[in-house]
Every structure is written in C-alpha cells, then in structure tokens.
C-alpha cells in the first residue's frame, strides 16, 4: 500500500520530498486497526504543484490523486503538505 500511495503521489505532483509511512502498528487495538496493518498512514509531501493553493485545496488534490479506492480502504491518513 505504501508503494501504491507513493506512486500515485509521484505521478500527480512530482514532489521534491515524499515520505509515506505505515504507522498502523502504533494504532493496534484502536478503532480502524486491521490485522496485517495498512490502516494508518502518514504522508509528508513537498511540491511546487501546491504553490498558491489553500490548505483545503491541497488536501483535496491529494485525496483526488489517491482516488476513492485507496481512500476507502485505509482508515486514517495524516498529511503534512507544503509547497517548495
């Protein structure tokens, strides 16, 4: 899943910084945790594509790039998005 998320984001934003971390294990026992992980992710992305966009627009762009299939499958996605 981490690779899928990375691929989508690379294709959409050509980021200068991209880090996708599966931190599902830290949420073991919490709501949304699923055996085998792949439920909770943290994304840090820096790309000029976000220049001039509001926070909402940046987050929406990432949601769209990932698509409803990925978004629907994971429980949580924490994001740190910035422009260059």
């Amino acid at each position, binding site marked *: 899943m981490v690779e899928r998320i990375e691929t989508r984001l690379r294709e959409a934003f050509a980021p200068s910084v991209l880090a996708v971390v599966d931190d599902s294990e830290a*949420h073991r026992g919490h709501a949304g945790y699923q055996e085998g992980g792949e439920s909770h992710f943290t994304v840090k992305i820096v790309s000029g594509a976000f220049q001039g966009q509001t*926070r909402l627009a940046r*987050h*929406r762009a990432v*949601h769209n790039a990932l698509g*409803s299939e990925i978004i*629907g499958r994971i429980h*949580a*996605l924490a*994001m740190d998005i910035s422009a260059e």
Partner: protein
Amino acid sequence: MTDANTQIKETVTANDVVLFMKGTKEMPQCGFSSKVAGVLNYMGVGYQDVNVLADDGIRQGIKDYSDWPTIPQLYVKGEFVGGCDIITEMTLSGELDTLFDDKGVSYNKEAADKIREANA
C-alpha cells in the same frame, strides 16, 4: 436532497461552530477526533458536537456534503474549515484565532497561546 443532507445543513446553519466527530466531545472515540475536540475544549469554544458513529446516514452524508473523505470535520458559520491536520496547523499558526475573530466566535486567546507555547 437527502434527509441526512437536510439535517447537516440545518445543524451547521443553526450552530456557529460544529464538529462532526467519532464519539462525543466528552468521550471521543478516535485519536483524530479527540485531538480537535481537545483543542476546542481547551480554547473554551462553544460548539455543537455530532457523533457520526451514532448515525450511519450522517456518517456518509457528511462526507458527501463537504466532499471530504475523513472525520473529524469542523464547520464555522456553515463553512467547512478542515479536518484534524488542517485544524492542528491552523491552531499552531494562529490562523484559527483569526478565523474565530473574523467570524465573531468567542474563545480564550490565552489558552490558544498556551497551546502554541507548548508546541513551539
């Protein structure tokens, strides 16, 4: 327009600040909801909490309403502001204070400053 949609619209219109969350402001049931509720509670903001876990129609309806796939969701004066990441960033940058000032929502400025000091 669906019932959930009507209900959501009425709720965000009737209340200055509304947080759609998992659980309640006294007993959040998700870390992200808990974080936003905690900020609002600490800042002394009067807000209406809506527990999406108590109503499947609202749980899906709020995602359609805002075109936003995750919970929590904060509304101020009927306008969608953001989820956990955005509210956290806005709290730390002071933008949330500015938004509340602009919209005439009362809050404890000292408490907001304390949050920023603690996270500096």
